[in-house]
C-alpha cells in the first residue's frame, strides 16, 4: 500500500512537470521566440486556458504527499523553508505575468509583465530542478527527522550541504534546459509560420544542451549517491527507464528534423516522465535520505499515515483523478489545434486587451 501511494504521488508530480512544465517552458522562450505584440499574444493564448489547471497538479500533489506521508511533508516543507517560499513568490509572479498583461493596452505595461512572466518561469525551472537534486542527494536530517537547509553553504556535496551546491545547481540547469525544449515543443504544436520556425530552431539548438546535461547530471548522480544503482541491480527491468529516456531524446531529434510536431512534444513528455520516474524508481523506498546518519532517512514506511486512511484514500483518489483527467481531456480537446490571430476566444478574452 505504501508503495502504491509512492507511485501515485510520483505520478502526480510527473503530471505536474509534464503539464505545467510546458507553460514554464513557454514562459522561458516567450522573449526569444515571439516578436511583436501579435506573436506574444499568440504564445500566451497557447497556454492561456490551461496553465491554471496545470498548476493545480502541484497543489494536488502537495496535498497527496501531505495525505500519504505526513511526516515527510512536515519535515521537507519546513526544511526547505527558504526555497519553498521563493518558489511561492515566483508562482505568484508567474500567474500575474500571464494574466495581467492583457488588462491594460499599453506597450510598457505589457513588456513589464512579459518580463515578470519570463523571469519567474526561468527561475522556477531552476528551483524545481534543484529541489529534485536535493531530494536525490539527501539532506542533513536529525534524529527526530527534521532539518533546515541554508540556501547555500560551501557549494560542496558534504554532510552539511546547502540548497544550492554544485550538484543541485547542475540539476537545476538540466531542468532549465528540459523545460525550454518542452515549452518550445508545445509551441510547435500550437503555432505556425515564422513563430513556429523560431520555436523549432530554439528546440533544436537546446536539444544539444539537453543531451549533454542529461549525460553529465546522470553521471554526477551516480557519483554523489551511488546507492541509486541498487534498485536497478535488484530489478533488471528498471533499465527500461533509462533506455526510454535515451530513445525519447533520439526520437525527438528525428521528430524535429521531420517536422513531426506532435511526436516531438510526445517525446519530451516521455523524457520528463522517464527522468522523474527513474529518480523515483531509484529512490524507492526512500523518500528523503539523510546525509548525516543513514538511519535517520525518511522512507515510505516511517513517514506514512494510517492504513485506514490509505485504503479509503485510494477510493476517492481514483475517483477524483479520473474526474480530473476527464476535465482535462475535455478542456484540451476543446482548445485543440493551432492558435490563430483572427479568431477571438470570445467573451472575456476578446475584450481583454481593451
Amino acid at each position: 500500500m505504501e508503495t502504491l501511494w509512492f507511485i501515485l504521488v510520483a505520478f502526480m508530480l510527473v503530471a505536474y512537470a509534464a503539464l505545467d512544465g510546458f507553460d514554464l517552458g513557454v514562459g522561458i522562450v516567450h522573449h526569444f521566440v515571439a516578436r511583436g505584440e501579435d506573436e506574444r499574444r499568440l504564445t500566451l493564448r497557447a497556454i492561456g486556458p490551461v496553465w491554471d489547471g496545470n498548476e493545480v497538479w502541484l497543489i494536488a500533489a502537495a496535498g497527496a504527499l501531505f495525505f500519504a506521508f505526513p511526516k515527510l511533508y512536515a519535515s521537507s516543507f519546513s526544511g526547505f523553508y527558504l526555497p519553498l517560499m521563493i518558489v511561492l513568490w515566483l508562482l505568484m509572479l508567474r500567474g500575474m505575468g500571464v494574466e495581467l498583461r492583457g488588462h491594460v493596452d499599453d506597450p510598457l505595461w505589457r513588456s513589464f509583465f512579459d518580463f515578470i512572466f519570463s523571469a519567474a518561469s526561468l527561475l522556477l525551472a531552476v528551483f524545481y530542478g534543484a529541489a529534485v537534486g536535493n531530494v536525490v542527494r539527501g539532506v542533513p536530517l536529525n534524529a527526530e527527522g527534521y532539518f533546515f537547509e541554508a540556501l547555500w553553504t560551501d557549494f560542496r556535496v558534504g554532510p552539511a550541504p546547502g540548497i544550492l551546491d554544485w550538484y543541485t545547481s547542475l540539476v537545476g540547469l538540466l531542468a532549465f534546459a528540459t523545460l525550454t525544449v518542452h515549452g518550445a515543443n508545445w509551441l510547435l504544436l500550437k503555432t505556425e509560420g515564422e513563430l513556429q520556425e523560431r520555436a523549432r530552431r530554439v528546440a533544436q539548438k537546446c536539444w544539444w544542451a539537453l543531451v549533454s546535461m542529461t549525460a553529465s547530471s546522470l553521471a554526477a548522480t551516480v557519483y554523489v549517491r551511488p546507492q541509486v544503482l541498487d534498485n536497478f541491480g535488484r530489478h533488471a527491468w528498471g533499465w527500461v527507464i533509462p533506455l526510454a529516456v535515451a530513445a525519447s531524446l533520439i526520437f525527438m531529434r528525428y521528430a524535429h528534423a521531420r517536422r513531426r510536431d506532435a511526436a516531438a512534444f510526445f517525446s519530451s513528455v516521455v523524457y520528463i516522465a522517464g527522468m522523474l520516474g527513474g529518480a523515483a524508481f531509484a529512490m524507492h523506498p526512500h523518500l528523503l535520505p539523510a546525509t548525516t546518519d543513514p538511519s535517520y532517512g525518511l522512507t515510505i514506511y516511517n513517514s506514512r499515515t494510517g492504513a485506514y486512511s490509505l485504503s479509503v484514500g485510494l477510493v476517492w483518489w481514483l475517483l477524483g483523478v479520473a474526474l480530473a483527467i476527464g476535465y482535462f481531456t475535455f478542456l484540451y480537446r476543446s482548445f485543440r489545434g493551432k492558435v490563430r490571430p483572427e479568431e477571438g476566444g470570445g467573451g472575456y478574452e476578446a475584450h481583454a486587451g481593451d
Partner: protein
Amino acid sequence: MDDALTIHRLHFAFTITYHYLFPQLTMGLAPLVVVFKSLALWKGDERYNRAARFWAKIFAVNFLFGVVTGIPMEFQFGTNWARFSQFSGGVIATALAMEGVFAFFLESSFLGLFLFGEKRFGQRVHWLAAFMVFAGSWLSGYFIIVTDAWMQRPVGFELAADGTAHLVSFWALLFNEWAFWQYVHNMGGALVTGSFVMAAVGAFYLLSRRQEEYGRLFLKVGVTAAVAASCFQLFPSGDRHGKLIAEHQPATLAAMECLFRTQPGAPLVLVGQPNVAEQKLDNPIHVPKALSFLTYQHWEAEVKGLDAFPRDRWPDNIPLLYYSYHIMVGLGSIFIAVTSVAAFLLWRQRLYGARWMLWILMLSFPFPYIANTAGWMTAELGRQPWLAYGLMRTSEGFSPTVSSGNGLFTLIGFMGMYFVMGVLFLFLMWREVGHGPGFLDGHESKTPPSARILPEGAGA
C-alpha cells in the same frame, strides 16, 4: 520580536486573512454570474450576457489573486506548522488532498472554458462552464471548512502509538456537524460580500449617471441577494453555529461574551470594554438574561463563565476575540437593517431614485469584508490556546527548525509582495468598473430606452 511562536502565528494569520479577501468575493459572485447566464438563456436577452461577462472579468481578476495567494496556504501547513502537520496529517490531509483533486481541478478547468470559450462553444456550454466554476469554488470551500472544523471539533480519529492522529472514520470527518454549520455560515458570508459589491457597483452607475440600465439590474439582483444572505447569517446559520460553540467550546463562548463568572440568567453584552486584569467588563450595556435565552432557550439557564475553566484553557487574547465577535455581530445587524430598507424601496419601485440609499449602498461594500474577517478571527482566536481543540496546543505545533528570523523574513516578504499586489488589484478593479458592461465592445450601450431590460423607475 524573536518569539518564533508569535511570528509563525502572524505568518499564517496574515497570509490567510489576505488570501480570504479574494475567495469571499469569487464564491459570492459565482452563483450570481450563474443567475445572469440563466436569465440570458431563458429570456434570450443579450444584455444579461453582457452583465455576466462584466462580472466574469471582475471574477477572473479576483480568482487569479485568490489562486496565487492560495498556493502558499497549502504549503504553510508544512513550512511553518510542521509539528502540527505531522500530528494531524493523518486526518486533515484527507480533506486538503480531496480539495485538490475534487474542487481545484473542477474550477480551474472550467474557468479556462468559461473565460475563453464563449464564442467557440456557444451559450449552453458557457452556462455549464459557469455552473461548474460555481460548483468547484463552493466545493473547495467545503473541504477547507472540513479541515478547520476538525481543528475546532476533532472527530473520527484515534491517537496512534506514536502520538499522531489517525483517521478511523472518513464519514465522521466529512460530515462533522461543526463543518456543516460553519460552512453554511461562511458561504452566507461570502454571498453577503458578493451581493454588496454588486449592489455597490449598481449604485455607483446610477449615481454617476452612466451604464444606467446595468446599474438598475445590478441593484436589483444585488439587493435581493444581499437581504436574503444577511438574514440567513443571523438565522439559522449564525444561531446554530453559536449553539455548537456553546456545546463544544464553552470557554470560547464565555470569552466571546466576556462572561467571567458563571451565572444563571446571563446577560447579552451589546457594548463594553473587556478588562482582563480585573476580570470584568468596563462600561457595559447589556440585555439582561438574553445570552441564557439565545443559548439554551431558557431565560434562567446557567451559562458557564471563564471562572469555570482553568486559566491555561482560556483563549489567549480575550479582548481581540471579544471585539472581533462583536464587530461581526454588529455589522451583521446593520447589514440586515440596510438591506431590508433597500429591499423595501426596491419593492415599492423607489430605490433607483432614492439617492441617499444609493449612497449608502455604494459606500457599504467594504464592511462585509470586515465582517467576514472578524468572523474568521472569532473562530480562530476562539480556538486558542489549541491548534486542534483539546488535543494539541498552538505552542506545540510550529516548525522546530525554522528560526524566528527566517519566519520574520518571509513574513515581511509576503507583506511587501501583497502590498504591491493590492495596489495592482485596486487599479484593475477601478478600471473594470469604470469601463462597465456597456463598454465591453468599445462603445457605450446605444440601446434605446424603450428596449432596456428594466425601464427607468421600475423596481420589480
